[in-house]
Each structure stands twice: as structure tokens, then as C-alpha cells.
């Protein structure tokens, strides 16, 4: 009973602490029309120190969302356009020789920011991708002999174009796994499209975005997220979902056995739990329900489950596999 009271108090604190999200969302809605799910996923990733891989055709306001998000969250934003001729030094920085004092000085690259938009990450060679993904993992960068920690919060939002694969360097599975979520940016609805058209087809400058969040708000939110209660049933449910992607027959989905080349890694369980907590936080709850898990399951698992040859032949995507898993694994 005492624990329940604690959770109730925590719930109230969460409601209070999550107000900045609403403020930021309000600022975002000035510039961005629709794409609520994408924005929510960005908030979730930011709250649990995750990175996002955004996939969508050009012109869906991916850059605008991230830029506006950074502005509203009062975070330093850097956009890096990945190109085939890019070098790791273009990203992390390099040592510059100063002829006055005849010494080398480190010159920090664009990765030293809070929110990094790695535009078309698959256009750059593997060594540049590795440099960024290493920075994402280690949260520090070494230039010459000096190691520099990256600013907190540090968040990478990488974009990929799903329709152009000519001359691209596809991210290896091990590196894709480092992204907490892979979010599919879809087309806006009819009404949203209409609103976008009317709002954008003007010579007037776009509505200004006010920074409404302080770094301390994010730190506080992160601390509260760590306190969110996760019942053992939900813990097991998360593990069940991940294991079902590896051994579907155990969960009564034997038809998926040949459809999956490899299932989700243990990182999937970790990120599912973290993202569920952040989702519960956004719902002003001090505990996770299976609803939170289901809500972010697609985004957290889709890049971690690789459909096999048979699935590709039948045009079955990882989202279809996840749907089947969610439909067959019993909710606690």
C-alpha cells in the first residue's frame, strides 16, 4: 500500500515535470503540422538518452521537425549533410596547426552539439558512419591525443531515404542496432496536407519558435523516469516480445520461424524498457503498462528484426512480423 502511495506521489511529480514537454510541443506545432508520432518519438529518445534513425521520403519535414525541436528545447543544433567524400575529421574535428605558437590545437567538429541531424547518413562511407556511431555510443570524441566529452543532452537523429539506394553505403546491422528507434516518417493526412500548403505558400516568415525548456528540466525528467515502476509482469512481457522475435515457435507463431533471419538483440529489451518508461512519463504515469510497451514496440524493434529470404519473397516486412508477435504474445 505504501508503495502505491509512493507511486501516486511520483505520478504527481511526473505530471509536474512533464509540463515542459507540452510547452515544447506547443512551440513545435507553430512550425510543424501533423507528424505527432514522430515528435513524440523524438521526445522519448531525448528523455532516455537515445538516438533515432528517421526514414522517409524527401519533403516530409524531417529537418524542420528536428530543427524546431532543438530550438524549442533550447538545445544546440547541428545539421551535417553526409556525402560520399566526407571524412571522419569533417565530423568530429581535427588538429589545426597554429604557426604563431607553432603548436597544434584541436578544432572541434560539428558533432559537438546537443542535437545532431545526420542527414542521409547512408551517403557517407563506412568510416564516417563509424565515427558518428562511436560518438553516439561513447558520448565522447578523441581528436589527436585529447578526448572530449560530448555535450549533454546529446542526441543524434539520422535520416535515411528509403527509395534511393544508388551510391549509398547501407548501415551495417551492428550499427543500426545502436539507434534506439527507427521511426518511419509517413505522409501527412489530407487535412494536414491542406494546412501545410496554406501555411507554407506565403512570403511571410515562419512563426518564431521560443526556447521553452531549460537543460535542468531534461535532467529532472530523466531522473524521474529512472524511478518509474516496472512490474515484473511487464518486464517479462518485454522479454517475451524480444524472445518471440528469435524463437517465434515457442509463442505459437511457427509460421514466422522461416521468415526471420535474425531476431532482436538484447539491446532491444533494454531500449524497449527505457522507451516504455519514457512513454509512461509522457502519459504522466509512474508505472509502465503493456500499452506503453506496445506503443513503442514497432519503432524499437523494426530495425532489429531482419526478415529472411522467404519473408522478402512474400513481401513481408519487419513491421508485419512485429504485428504478428504483438498479436500472439499474451499481454499480462
Amino acid at each position, binding site marked *: *500500500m505504501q*508503495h*502505491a502511495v509512493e*507511486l501516486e506521489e511520483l505520478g504527481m511529480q511526473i505530471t509536474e515535470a512533464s509540463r515542459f514537454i507540452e510547452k515544447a510541443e506547443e512551440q513545435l506545432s507553430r512550425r510543424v503540422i501533423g507528424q505527432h508520432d514522430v515528435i513524440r518519438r523524438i521526445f522519448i529518445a531525448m528523455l532516455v538518452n537515445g538516438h533515432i534513425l528517421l526514414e522517409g521520403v524527401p519533403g516530409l519535414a524531417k529537418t524542420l521537425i528536428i530543427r524546431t525541436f532543438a530550438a524549442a528545447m533550447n538545445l544546440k543544433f547541428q545539421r551535417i549533410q553526409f556525402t560520399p567524400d566526407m571524412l571522419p575529421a569533417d565530423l568530429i574535428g581535427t588538429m589545426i596547426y597554429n604557426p604563431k605558437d607553432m603548436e597544434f590545437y584541436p578544432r572541434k567538429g560539428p558533432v559537438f552539439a546537443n542535437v545532431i541531424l545526420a542527414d542521409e547518413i547512408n551517403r557517407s562511407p563506412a568510416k564516417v558512419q563509424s565515427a558518428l556511431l562511436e560518438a553516439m555510443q561513447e558520448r565522447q570524441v578523441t581528436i589527436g591525443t585529447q578526448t572530449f566529452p560530448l555535450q549533454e543532452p546529446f542526441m543524434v537523429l539520422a535520416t535515411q531515404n528509403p527509395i534511393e539506394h544508388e551510391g549509398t553505403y547501407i548501415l551495417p546491422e551492428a550499427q543500426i542496432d545502436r539507434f534506439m528507434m527507427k521511426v518511419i516518417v509517413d505522409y501527412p493526412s489530407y487535412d494536414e496536407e491542406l494546412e501545410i500548403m496554406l501555411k507554407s505558400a506565403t512570403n511571410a516568415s515562419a512563426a518564431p519558435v521560443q526556447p521553452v525548456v531549460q537543460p535542468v528540466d531534461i535532467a529532472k525528467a530523466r531522473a524521474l523516469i529512472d524511478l518509474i*515502476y516496472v*512490474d515484473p*509482469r*511487464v518486464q517479462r512481457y518485454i522479454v517475451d516480445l524480444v524472445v518471440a522475435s528469435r524463437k517465434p515457435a515457442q509463442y505459437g507463431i511457427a509460421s514466422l520461424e522461416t521468415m526471420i533471419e535474425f531476431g532482436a538483440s538484447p539491446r532491444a529489451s533494454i531500449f524497449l524498457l527505457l522507451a516504455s518508461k519514457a512513454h509512461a512519463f509522457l502519459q504522466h*504515469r*509512474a*508505472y*509502465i*503498462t*503493456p*500499452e506503453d510497451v*506496445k506503443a513503442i514496440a514497432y519503432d524499437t524493434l523494426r530495425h532489429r528484426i531482419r526478415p529472411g529470404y522467404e519473408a522478402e519473397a512474400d513481401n513481408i516486412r519487419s513491421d508485419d512480423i512485429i504485428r504478428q508477435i*504483438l*498479436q*500472439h*504474445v*499474451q*499481454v*499480462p
Partner: protein
Amino acid sequence: MNRRSEGYASGSLKWLVIVLFAALPMLTVCALPVAAWGAVSGVTVTLAPDSVFVGDRIHCIIGVRHPANELVALEGIDSLSVQPFELISRKQSSSIVSLGTAKESFEFELAVFGSGRLLIPPFSVVLRDSEGKVIKRDSYRSSTLVLVKALTDSTMREIRPIKPPIKPLLPFLLFLPVILGVFAIAGLVLLLLFFLKRSVRTSAEKVDPGQVAQRKLRKLRSRLSAGMPPPECYEELSNIMRSFLETHYRIRALEAVTQEIERDLKKLGVAGFESIMNLLAQADLVKFADSRPDAEESRQSLRKAEEVIRSARPSLPPEE
């Protein structure tokens, strides 16, 4: 002179007996070749085989003993090329038999036509001296017969025995009824399964999910009274409600979260769905938010659940 000739005769007889004894085992071993003496001694005609089919070949060996200083030739042998014989090839060889005596062997390969018992045609043996003058010309008519069998269906088979076609171990026609039978049995089984499934479904439909849920709730209440911990009671209550919703409204409830059930029930326009959602939300709090209701709260929830189920079942008679 007579004695002398008698002596010669008895000597030749002796030789003949010796030759016959010597030839007997050969004739016994090689039964087929037939040896026949011509009308004049010193000329032998041998045929092998003595029985052939029309068109087959025979070997005819004509041996002529003669003084070593004379030359031997056969004449009229070309006439062998007249029907029913056709000369295929010929060979000639000579050997010294004894001092002053030589033997000339003429070997003919002949193709035989016609039918029945045929005699080798007559031929002449010509002896010439060393200068080529004809010394002697003797005509011979061999009594050696060759049996030529005509080709009939049966003989054709004897010549080239044609293997009968290999019959399959189980001919298709034998299989066909078996296959048809298997299909018929499979069809019958499928039909039976179909009817069985339908009857099971019908009987399951006859069992009212509300009745099942009510029975489970009554059991749960008695277990709660017997000291069941309230959190467990709520977990059980949530399962009963989900099973009921799944079977009654035909929605996926056991694998769905509360919010999904809410969406489905809203879509269906279920009356009193707020009460259902309250119950599920309360159960969720117990399950996921570590909420600890007391026994009285649990009893109230059970009563609410029974009401919800009863209201969803208009045909259910009131509980006693």
C-alpha cells in the same frame, strides 16, 4: 597277288578302323559337324552345322588327299553360288600328311536358302601335274545333307529371342483404384472434420460466454472469501473479463492491452463499456502499479463485473 591285295585290303581296313576309333571321340565331342566320305576315297566333305535356318551360314570343308607332286583344284564349286547356296568366302590350305602324300583343304562359307533337306551340289576334283596338265578329273556327289528350317513366328523367336516388355511391379491401373480410394478417404476425413468442427462450434456457441464468466466469478468470490489475496483476485478478474469480451464480442482481448480493448468496444458501441473499462483499469493498477486493494474492494469489483456481464446478456435469467 590276291593275297597281296587282301593284305592291302586288310591293312586299309585296319587303318580305317584306327581312323574311325580316332575320329569317334571327336565326333562324340563335336556332335554337330557331319563327316561324310565322298564316292572316291581321299575326298572328304564336312558340314557344320547340319541344321540351320534359312539365310544362316554353314561351313563346308572339302579335303582331298593326293600325291605331293600333283596340284589339286576344285571345279564346279562356283555352281554353289546357285540357289539354294551362296558362296560367301573360300579358303584353301595344304599340308603334308605323310611322305609323298599331301592334303588340300578347301573351306567354303556358304549362305543357305531354300528349305528342307538339301544336298551339297556335285563338284569335280582336278589333279594336275607340275606342268599344269590335267591328269585326272573326278566328279563327286556328296551325300551330306543340311537341314534348312524355314522362318516362322516361332523360329523368329528362336533366332532373336525378344525379351518381353518389363511390366511394372504394380501397374498404374492397379494403382488407380488405390489412389482414388485414398482421395475418397481423405475427402471423407475432411468432410468429417468439417462437420465435427461445425458441431463443436455450434455447441460452443450454445455455451453462453456470460454463463461461463458468471460461473468463474462465483468461484473467484468463494476463493476470495477463503482468503485469496486481493491482487491475485484482480488478476483473475482481469483474465475472466478479457475471456468474456473475447468470446462475447469476438474481439482480440487476451493479447490486447486495455486501451486496445477500449478502442474495439467503442467501435462496437457496447453499452456500459465505461464500467468494463473501469474494471480493467482497476485491475491494471493492481497488476502494473503495485496497487493493493483490500478484500472489500475486491468484492465490490466482483459484483460490478457480474453486473456488467449480466447487462451484456439480456437472455440470462436473474441470479438466485
